[in-house]
């Protein structure tokens, strides 16, 4: 039986009419038409569908839409757009860390969750955080370089840190659950 629920995604409230078994990923892609979040396995194995739920990265293919009610959801569309890219996105572009781009939205969300909670991770911590996001193009080399570079930028620039924690277009309102 379909029911109406309200989901809070990228700071906006959406009323959707969905069946209880529908996954958050499918609601995001089909009902909200936010197609930046990708479907790679439907089994929680690849990380292409990563979104933030109350600041934490989750595989949205494994979360029932009903269980996302009352949570703050951030998708890739909530991170950077025409008005400007998030420093993580800029770094991925600059380092040549984007190839096919299918895993990239998930990588951005995972990296954002990591740097929001720990702006100065070691390379090993970055790799561990990204271990649930499979990439078949890059060997992760330039992705890890890019995330380490952003971490360095944050540590060298208090202004950037301040900006990231306050600016809404970077999905900041969900930081620090």
């Amino acid at each position, binding site marked *: 039986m379909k029911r109406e629920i309200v989901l809070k995604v990228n700071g906006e409230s959406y009323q959707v009419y969905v069946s209880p078994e529908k996954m958050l990923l499918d609601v995001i*892609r089909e009902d909200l038409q*936010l*197609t*930046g*979040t*990708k*479907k*790679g*396995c*439907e*089994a929680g*194995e*690849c990380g*292409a569908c990563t979104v933030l739920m109350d600041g934490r990265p989750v595989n949205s293919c494994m979360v029932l839409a009903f269980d996302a009610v009352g949570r703050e959801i951030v*998708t*890739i*569309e909530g*991170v*950077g*757009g025409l008005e400007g*890219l998030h420093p993580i*996105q800029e770094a*991925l*572009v*600059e*380092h*040549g*860390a*984007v*190839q*096919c*781009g*299918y*895993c*990239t*939205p998930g990588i*951005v969300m995972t990296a954002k969750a990591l740097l929001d909670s720990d702006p100065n991770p070691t390379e090993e911590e*970055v*790799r*561990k955080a*990204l*271990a*649930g*996001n*499979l*990439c*078949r*193009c*890059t*060997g*992760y*080399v*330039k*992705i*890890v370089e890019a995330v380490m570079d952003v971490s360095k930028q944050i540590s060298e620039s208090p202004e950037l840190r301040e900006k990231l924690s306050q600016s809404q277009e970077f999905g900041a309102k969900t930081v620090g659950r």
Partner: protein
Amino acid sequence: MGYAVVGQRVPRVDAREKVSGRALFTGDMTLPHMLVGKVLRSPYAHAQIVRIDTTKARSLPGVKAVLTFEDVPKIPWNSAGFPPSPGAILMEDQYILTDKVRYVGDGLAAVAAVDEETANRALELIEVEYEVLPALMDMEAAMAEDAPLIHAAPQNVMAHMPIVIGDVDQGFADADIVFEDTYYVPKVYQVSMEPCGVAMAAPDMDGRVTIWTSTQMPHLVRGITAHALGLSTSQVRIIKPPVGGAFGSRLGVVNEPIAALLAIKAGKPVMLKYSREESFLATESRHPIKMILKTGIKKDGTFTARQMTAYIDGGAYATHTPSFAGPVAGWFLAMYKSPNIKVDNYSVYTNSTQCGAFRGYGNPQVVFAVESQVDDIAAALGLDPLEIRLKNHPCAGEVWMWSSWVIESCGLDEGIKRASEAIGWGEKRNKQERLEYAQGNGITADSTKKRGVGMAYMMHVSGARPMLHETSAAVVKINEDGKANLIYSNSDCGQGAGTALTQVAAEELGLNYEDVFITKTADTDVAGFDIGSHASRQAYSGGNAVKKAAAAAKEKLLAMASEILEVPAADLEVAEGMIRVRQEPEREISVAEVSHKAHFGSHGHQIIGAVSEEPPGNPPVYAAQFVEVEVDTETGVIEVLKVVAAHDVGTAINPAVVEGQIEGAIQQGIGYALTEEYRYHPGTGKPLNANFTDYKILTAVDMPEVETILVEASSESGPFGAKSVGESGLVATAAAIANAVYDAVGIRIKELPLTPEKVLAALEQKGN
């Protein structure tokens, strides 16, 4: 070299839309009244369909089309994305849906319905009765005298390709030592992150069908799909949006004909999207090959005879396989010089999913065998592994036997030198020095962890000439603001070809990179005929056409500028959008002004350059890959500590793109060496690991340090000296790891992947 745009690490043309989630992949699209397509797949590896009843499915509300073998055109076809060419052997043994299933997952019916739930229910309502046949899951079973036939081919051998050069019997008689070894490499999957098999088809009122599809080969897929549907080529329009990785998996038709036929029958757009499991079950992968190598050699390291007998498991349909046997022979023939060479290739049908293209196209298989054996030969003869390779590889100025053309440039020797220094080859191969080095890392002589270094070399192609045509077409038009469009059948699947080609056009035109706009989406109604992305061809073949189209536009631009400035065109040059008199740089005019005058002055025309042609050659690329491993002799686990990859790619048009290709290919190569193997139940033929939990690709935690070294031995014929890079990084990786394991613990495993079980068994055997 003095290039302005070529050689620069400019950001990719599609990076910003991808990093922001705005890039629309095929599976992100939707059309009004779009239906959802689904395929009914066989639960049996080999069975005749005795009865199929779709009555109930057809009467389910919301179902708009149901197809079985009865409904498909009775036109046999072949899915491989080959242009008709001398090297294309295209056995047509497929139909859009089958009446005899030949692997678990073979498609026997398809439905289109208003939503996914209805489509899935319709599949459940289709009644099928099978007469189950024995599942032939390996080549021995398939080639047995009394084996049932999968197709009509006797003993299930679809093709046999013998090649003889010289007299190998004499060569073996002349040898000081003859080595004979058997190697086996398994089936592995490309596993692009976007599952393989996504197409959206829409019929129109003029008898045409438009298909948006995640493909590497827009034009060839157009032709094959049209043929399978009984249409003429131009009745099909292929649009290729961004592709979520390919690596060969989309090198030809995947599911376009099913999507198109459903759409035509339903009279509505249909989206047919394979799940991850379906893309494992029903799309093409790397060929398993059994290779028997026999090599005769003199004590000084001179080859007297080289022979390979290969059994290639093509799976349930021919697709690439009979043609694929050609490059397999070519890789072997061309690696090392020898007066006598013989190859015997057998292509065999089995009841596994059909095999096709995967980065390297047979080369990783052959290089694993050849470079494993050469390492053993060097050890047996007491030769330096580097010397034996340097002495016997084909060099610039010599004929390369893969193409029978003269090699234009060779950076292998420099690559071996630089990479061996980077890995610390000299000190680490020296047992005493290595012991001291290991102790420095806290590893003692009686530690259960042993380290070793190994290397392997490879050569690869820049396109497939002369076996296959390599046509590309490009149109460069200069707009009235002095910026340019590059119209190209852009089959970039993430490798960065679209970016590199934009750089080539900008360099040739004398424009800034930011002022040239390539068609990011390929559209066969718009761009000229292009072969697509295969054989690492885009930079070389596509680059050739793009450079010439840009040159043609530039010639017209300078002719116009010469009229305006009243100086001969030969005295003019263009850079950063400005045309200047070479000897009097203060006399200048912008490209924008000239183009504006062309459009709206007395001439009234747009400056356009257009070219369609094949590139002049096929310059081979070289790579030397060195690895250091640590083998845990208690658990059998191999850890790759570092990979150094020296690649002669010719001129690197964009070094960041080139490095990205090598780094990503190495991830796939390490997987091939250590963790990846697609397995079937030997009795039932059911896949055992069609998911990412059981089919293990490397994560960010698993990847070792990778150091890439670019050796730019520029070609004579390539655009600005470019050759290729797309596939090379995968090719020699597994062999280098196997050789490093041998160096570490003295075991030689001749079957991939090098699992802990195999390592422990080999160590035990060695201990006994």
